């Protein structure tokens, strides 16, 4: 069975500093991995996905994620955090007909 884990409920980072939101996965076979962001009282917005190919995936709003097969990780990164990046972030992995989501990590960027 496939699953993802987000080990941090909360991540705080100063504005302008690099940010990392962690995600690890478990799957038999090749994973399809996704990152989403959710702002308060809004639906989830798709940020990026990894299907195959280059391990560094670039997405929306300057975010990128690095797929690491040996560590079974898919961490979300951004070189310089903005206050507007403060939100809830979800990692997800494909199932047979749906996605399995992590529990979410709340990112707070401190001015």
């Amino acid at each position, binding site marked *: 069975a496939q699953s993802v884990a987000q080990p941090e409920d909360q991540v705080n980072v100063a504005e302008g500093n690099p940010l990392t939101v962690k995600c690890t996965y478990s799957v038999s076979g090749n994973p399809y991995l996704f990152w989403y962001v959710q702002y308060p009282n809004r639906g989830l917005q798709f940020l990026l996905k990894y299907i195959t190919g280059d391990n560094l995936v670039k997405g929306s709003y300057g975010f990128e994620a690095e797929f690491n097969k040996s560590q079974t990780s898919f961490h979300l990164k951004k070189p310089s955090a903005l206050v507007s990046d403060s939100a809830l972030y979800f990692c997800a992995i494909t199932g047979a007909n*749906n996605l399995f989501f*992590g529990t979410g990590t709340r990112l707070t960027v401190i001015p």
Partner: protein
Amino acid sequence: SQTIHQWPATLVQPVGSPLSLECTVEGTSNPNLYWYRQAAGRGLQLLFYSVGIGQISSEVPQNLSASRPQDRQFILSSKKLLLSDSGFYLCAWSVHGYNEQFFGPGTRLTVL
């Protein structure tokens, strides 16, 4: 381009009352459709998904039901709401199960 609509945006209902939430998708055909519930602004719980008209898969047994009367319409219903049904309900669509899902704006349901 594709868009997904949900209504109503907010709903306050008494315990024991019925429920009907509607989701429609525009700009695509034969999408996979999904209903999620999010409690307390955290994790997503998949409630139902559908790969075609009249085809509904239930992930969690409860007093909710779903229907897909048309290709791009997905309805979440209940005959009698419980306090525990309160939450943020999200509808999503995808081209198929292995693709990214695109979410609607959500419905905030409060059961009193």
